């Protein structure tokens, strides 16, 4: 999680930036007036939809072929109710998603599987629910009909919470939705739906095409097969084990040469005769390489869009066929190519991040006192004496630990070796205000109260960070008392769920950290810094 506060600030700026635009919100041009009743349009559409044949199980097995931003791929999707499993293939890049009883998981391009709370935006890309006009929460108006064949009634739909309307086109003859228009940013995005087929009572578009006017970004999805009602065992949707084949197995423990600069742990990635400085970041779900370096190395793009016609650069997925990091050999290691570089000092230019994928295949020991990073084969790793297990869950590769903050236990704390400062987020503070003592002589306490008048803080104002004293900060067995910590008014979430805090190097450096991701564990062992700084309770 590199520079999280910067990311937060950006989000606030974006929230404050959007304003209604009359041109963008204008009804489509060239429509002819009509007198048809809204109720009649919706009734015809509802008849067209059909319904699942009686007695048919709510399951589907379907295949899709797609082109997304220039890259072709396929999807295999199995679903039973809200449980599903998908496999998306884009050349050599293969990933899977799944959900069983509300628990989601993701197996990434490197074959590493992790639980995931975030919404999976890929698996159901081709499936669309086009019922906004029927939703009684929305205000719907018939604005006209198209004048060219096939004729369609056009409905404008205003939805609660949306700044812009959308438009749905209903084929006058069939009742099918054949086109939608929505506003994204400064553009009107158009989606067309055709090749409607009825399968066992249910009518669906088998072809969906999205465009916002920039052809290189068009998305095109064709359903190639659909089987409804077939039995699928629930076990099919359960999270599978990792199948990491990209990190060659180690035989014995070894040291990885590393430099500890400020809060960064920097290692050398050797690839194609070049030595590249990467940081090891426990909070990074993806590994990253700077796009210019990727280009210099000739790393493949697999047909993905890398740059728009206007020069805007586009991040893409790539692979390194063979590289080493100390004793670790990486083969066909997938990572994200994007702009990413900075200099930690005159001698070190960081051009990438090794994240969850890198850490997931072996056990690692991070030793702040001696400035070392050791790797241990997963099969031979055993936690050392004196190490405490930190209650931990992975969220799509991000380690969330439980720690005591104030009088309660925060269960979603990001363990972030690459963030220097620990910080506690607004939603947690709001829930436990009595555990925090304002160190700004009371000024903060009034300012953060959500008054509606103009003297108060408001949504859209810049992120604010200040110092509070917290009664307890408990990390495994260590209990820091009455210590100042950074806190912020801003809520922060990962995967749609609130993050309580980030614990950074300022507290982590009192421990040797053992990452044992193959067994889903993290251990913390108090180190020399700890015993030099703190005393045991009598």
């Amino acid at each position: 999680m590199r520079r999280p506060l910067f990311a937060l600030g950006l989000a606030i700026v974006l929230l404050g930036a959007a304003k209604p635009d009359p041109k963008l919100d204008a009804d489509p041009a060239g429509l002819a007036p009509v007198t048809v009743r809204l109720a009649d349009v919706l009734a015809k559409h509802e008849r067209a939809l059909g319904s699942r044949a009686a007695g048919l199980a709510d399951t589907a097995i379907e295949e899709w072929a797609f082109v997304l931003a220039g890259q072709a791929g396929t999807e295999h999707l199995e679903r039973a109710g809200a449980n599903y499993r998908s496999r998306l293939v884009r050349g050599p890049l293969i990933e899977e998603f799944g959900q069983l009883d509300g628990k989601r998981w993701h197996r990434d391009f490197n074959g590493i599987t992790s639980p995931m709370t975030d919404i999976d935006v890929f698996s159901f890309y081709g499936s669309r629910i086009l019922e906004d006009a029927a939703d009684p929460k929305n205000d719907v108006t018939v604005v006209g009909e198209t004048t060219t064949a096939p004729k369609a009634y056009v409905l404008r739909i205003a939805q609660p919470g949306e700044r812009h309307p959308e438009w749905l086109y209903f084929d006058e003859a069939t009742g099918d939705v054949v086109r939608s228009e929505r506003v994204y940013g400064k553009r009107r995005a158009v989606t067309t739906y055709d090749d409607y087929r009825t399968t066992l009572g249910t009518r669906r578009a088998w072809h969906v095409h999205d465009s916002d006017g920039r052809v290189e970004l068009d998305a095109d999805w064709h359903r190639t097969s659909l089987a409804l009602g077939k039995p699928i065992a629930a076990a099919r949707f359960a999270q599978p084990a990792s199948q990491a084949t990209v990190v060659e197995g180690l035989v014995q423990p070894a040291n990885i040469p590393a430099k500890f600069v400020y809060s960064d742990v920097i290692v050398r990635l050797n690839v194609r005769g070049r030595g590249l400085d990467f940081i090891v970041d426990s909070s990074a779900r993806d590994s990253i390489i700077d796009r210019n370096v990727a280009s210099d190395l000739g790393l493949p793009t697999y047909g993905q869009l890398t740059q728009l016609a206007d020069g805007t650069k586009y991040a893409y997925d790539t692979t390194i066929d063979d590289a080493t990091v100390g004793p670790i050999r990486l083969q066909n290691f997938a990572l994200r190519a994007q702009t990413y570089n900075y200099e930690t000092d005159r001698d070190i230019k960081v051009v990438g991040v090794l994240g969850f994928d890198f850490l997931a295949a072996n056990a690692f020991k991070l030793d702040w006192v001696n400035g070392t990073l050791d790797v241990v084969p997963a099969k031979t790793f055993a936690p050392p004496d004196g190490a405490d297990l930190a209650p931990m869950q992975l969220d799509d590769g991000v380690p969330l630990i439980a720690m005591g903050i104030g009088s309660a236990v925060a269960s979603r704390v990001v363990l972030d070796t690459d963030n220097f400062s620990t910080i506690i987020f607004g939603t947690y503070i709001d829930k436990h205000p009595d555990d925090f003592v304002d160190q700004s002589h009371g000024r903060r306490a009034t300012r953060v109260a959500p008054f509606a008048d103009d003297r108060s803080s408001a949504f859209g104002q810049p992120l604010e960070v200040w110092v509070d004293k917290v009664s307890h900060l408990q990390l495994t067995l260590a209990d820091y008392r009455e210590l100042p910590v950074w806190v912020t008014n801003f809520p922060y979430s990962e995967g749609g769920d609130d993050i309580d805090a980030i614990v950074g190097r300022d507290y982590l450096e009192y421990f040797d950290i053992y990452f044992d991701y193959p067994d889903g564990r993290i251990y913390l062992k108090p180190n020399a810094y700890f015993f030099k700084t703190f005393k045991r309770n009598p």
Partner: protein
Amino acid sequence: MHTSSRPSNATRSALIAAACAALLLGVDGTVKDDGSSAPAGIAPTKTTLSTVLALHRKSIGRLATGLAKTSTEQWTIRGGALDGTETDVTSGNNERDDQTVGPFHSATGTLAGKSWHQNENGEVVIEHGLHSLDTSTERSLATVDRYVTLLGTTTSPDAYVVRVAPPDGRLEYLFYDRSGGQLVRRESAIRGRRHVATFTDFHTTSGRTQAWHEHTSDGRPENDRDYTLTTLAYGTPIDPKALAIPTATSPVTLASAHVQIPIKLIDDRVIVPITISGRTVDFQLDSGSSGILIDSLIVHALKLPVYGNAVADTAGSYDSGRTIIPQMTFGGVTMKNVEADVAPFTFWSDDKTPVAGLLGFDFIDGAVVHIDYQHSTLEAFDPASFTPPAGATSLPIALDDDVPLVNAGIAKAIGHLFIVDTGADRSTIFSPFAAAHPDDVTDLGLGDEMVASYPFVTDFNGVGGTVRYRPLQVGPFTFASYVFPKWLFNGTHDAPAFEDDFDGLVGQDVLRNFDVYLDYAHEKIWLVPNDRYRARWG
């Protein structure tokens, strides 16, 4: 008669804020004992149920002959950082209990077969006896029907354990002392938690034996209460005035018989800017809230007193207290010395509107409140001079829980406990109602299709946390005299603290099709269809 450990209006009032839709607070992640499992350590017994219950009846004894059927009890109450007293008076089937806790006074009673309650703001409600959970359990035990079973014995306490589990009642485990037959412990499954009441210090007065000390707990120390009987007298004359239903008072004053209240209608949420101590706080008008709720940060910033502390459950668990707001003013409405609940509660209805309170029963009960969803206006009328608009449809309501309960129909099923809830974004069917009417509450297609195409959005926010749901299209849906062929509801599941024994919510998605007049004084809601209704369903 003292009945404090039974579910009461005070208990329910926490639920109520229930209904308000938007709040971003986390969920208590701990595993809870929902009270359904049998107590541990029960050994089999050869004693029969009838023997145990006979022993219990004998333990209670009989009032000395010739005594009038009257009683007067004085109790002290301790716990929740707020102590108080209770005076209970009975005469025949009539009773009145007056409770004073800290600065707050409330009362409940039954007179001539009518149950009533008066809340801390002086408002009086005549109850309709719609809730059957408790009465059903009491009936089962009184008639010793097939839902009453003797499970065995425990050693601590040394007691027989009787299970009472009528399908339409609350599950209870009753512990009868093995030697004396007294009821010494009761465990009840209430809104997803095990509530335990222990009874000690038995005394016999005028031939009748009862516990003079009762301790209640739901497993959270903040909610523990101790009730101690200090005086008890049977057969003494009771002044009929002591049993009378108190005269209602209201904290609401209108500047004239009809006032216009400035609001912001944001996505059908009625947001009312209210001035408190010179500051403006946005409240949401929430008929689903049984009182006034204000955010704890606001209370802290305004230096309002906070009385007591407890952990309440609605959509999640949260710390709560109570305060007295000296004055609230908004658009010709003044509310003085308002008892209000205090809890962490803030959400942003849009990027300029921080909502930090709920404006519920105590305001709505003091006026006739007219919401014009189509023209974004809010009016309040003096109930004494209010005349319903011509052509309005009358919808009878019951205010047993200080929220408007109405009948609503789903297919052929009729629910008597639907809450008309201006705070709910969408109408909701609670899982017990769905489970009780499986043939009527069955998805008509759209709900399944929505899950099939986007199986992710499965919770909505309520006070203190989130509630899981799935979209559920059912019908016909009958509300007042209006019949909608299909309606898309949220169907909750696994949310006992949120649902209790209510059937569901009728939310803004329905109400926005009407001019709505909330006329609590006459136990009515008046509905006038607006243009939205006519365009879609008229």
